[in-house]
């Protein structure tokens, strides 16, 4: 199975106009993950476009450079979202400031518990910012060892949320043993 370019563009448009911040599609071998910029809803996107950048800034670089910078920085953030912590542990950090939620709604079970095995693309929690919910992905395969904030707590940008024991390291160790 495959998707045509037109179909991909249509999916992009659909996501752009929707309230979802993430879209996962698996068709046989094909896996498509589209994620909107963290912390943004269509409304917020509008804000960003409308708001001028700093008035005192001397000269604005051209738009092209801005886009490129953003991409580069986006990657950096992704890399930094997981950080080694202690021996063989990594942390999942909050990608934005907001309220930390462990469940999709109060009656639902939490996304993860201590001891859960998570895959890179699993949602581990939600961060709410002014009624917009953003899914946080594990970005690493492994076991949840610790959950730092309480559900409903304000978390800062970059604050550690989960401590994870990565799966590949465990495997390697066991293989060596």
């Amino acid at each position: 199975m495959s998707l045509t370019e037109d179909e991909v563009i249509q999916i992009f448009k659909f996501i752009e106009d929707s309230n979802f911040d993430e879209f996962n599609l698996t068709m046989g071998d094909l896996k498509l993950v589209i994620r909107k910029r963290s912390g943004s809803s269509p409304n917020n996107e509008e804000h960003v476009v409308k708001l001028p950048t700093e008035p005192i800034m001397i000269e604005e670089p051209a738009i092209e450079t801005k886009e490129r910078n953003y991409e580069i920085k986006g990657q950096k953030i992704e890399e930094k979202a997981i950080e080694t912590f202690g021996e063989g542990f990594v942390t999942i950090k909050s990608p934005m400031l907001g309220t930390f939620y462990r469940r999709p709604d109060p009656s639902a079970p939490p996304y993860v518990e201590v001891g859960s095995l998570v895959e890179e693309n699993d949602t581990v929690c939600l961060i709410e910012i002014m009624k917009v919910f953003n899914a946080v992905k594990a970005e690493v395969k492994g076991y949840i060892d610790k959950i730092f904030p309480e559900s409903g707590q304000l978390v800062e940008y970059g604050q550690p949320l989960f401590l994870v024991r990565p799966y590949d390291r465990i495997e390697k160790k066991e293989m060596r043993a």
Partner: protein
Amino acid sequence: MNNISRVLVANRGEIAVRIIKACKDLGIESVAAVSEADKDSMAARMANRVICIGPPRPSESYLRPDTILCAALGTGSDAIHPGYGFLAEQPELAESCRKNNLIFIGPTPENLKQMGNKLLARRMVKRYSIPIIPGSEKVANLREAYRILEKIGLPVLIKAAAGGGGRGIKIVNSFDELKITFETAAAEARTAFGDETLYIERFFPNARHIEVQVAADHFGDVIHLGERDCSLQRRYQKIIEEAPAPSISNELRGKIRKAGVKIAKNMKYENLGTVEFILDQDSNQFFFLEMNTRIQVEHPVTEVISGIDLVREQIRIAANYPLSLSQGDLKLTGHAVECRINAEYSEARFQPCPGRITEWAPPKGDGIRVDSHCYPGYLITPYYDSLISKVITSGGDRLQAIERMQYALQNFFVKGVETTIPFLRFILNQSDYRRGRVNTCWIEKVLGQHSANNTR
């Protein structure tokens, strides 16, 4: 303060430091909202609490009204101080503060909207019978632009309605330039402000920039705190400011101050604001330029000659206190000058110079005040503007203030980054500056001569 006990400072740099100081004076707690790049900043060190709001890029941190609001609510702050720039003049943040029972330390969202669109502001001020710069309404196309030029004469400025603060301005000196300038101005306005609406104003080559500091409380009282002269500009950005405005008659001074108060009163303005005017030195007429609905970078010169802490006054007004003085109580003494010091290399077309400050020794002495967020070892990041310090000097008269400024700049030692200190010293040494024979084009002219001499 009864209803303000904790303020979220939604800004960075020297103004964040300035706001935190005012909070401390008033016995109010402060929360510094910082981007990842500002976690080690002086504001972060001084505030009672620090909260990281996002990555360094302003569009992902300081420019996000939702994040700022969430940070304020989450830290139990009851007010937000927006400083200048960023979200200070955006109605969105002020509006969401109102909806969430938070105090926005600034004017009402209505005030911000009235003055935010420069075309609407012109229209409104005209209704108050204050002279506005001869110009146009919205200019729809190039043909209309030609007609307007024929009517008001050259040179003109093409301005973005959503601009302000010296941004989104282009000069047209001849009919030949109009087409290309008009087209690029529209494109730039669209990308910079998301609104390509343009208007045209006559440009006065021999004008001074004079602005009136106003303060208005919730009870409808409006006063002025004198005026400032900010004629020394480069690319429509202020470089040296002073108060009071030199070499104008007291009659004219009185008229300009009155016009500022009248505008604020008529539009039901609240809190601190600055009404900017252009004074054409050829005709001695003044015209409304725009109003800045926030604390300004150059506010210290007014503080020095009036003895009033403007940021403190701002917070008091926001907390529903009446003005701390009446118009009759205002006493302005002496003269004050401010120089803005940027991390820029003036010899290389004022290229910003980010980097680590290895030595930082600001001047000390009578009549010298330094507002800054820098310290030895501080890293100037490339994400924000290049202002690193403001030096304010005062004296019994203008010459004493200027002499103290020369002394201060000679004794300001910065290493690790290039600064505009040598350039400012060069300007202060010009006899035209000392005599007050300047206009808004003067610095560019002097710079042009300077570089011509250097290449010769």
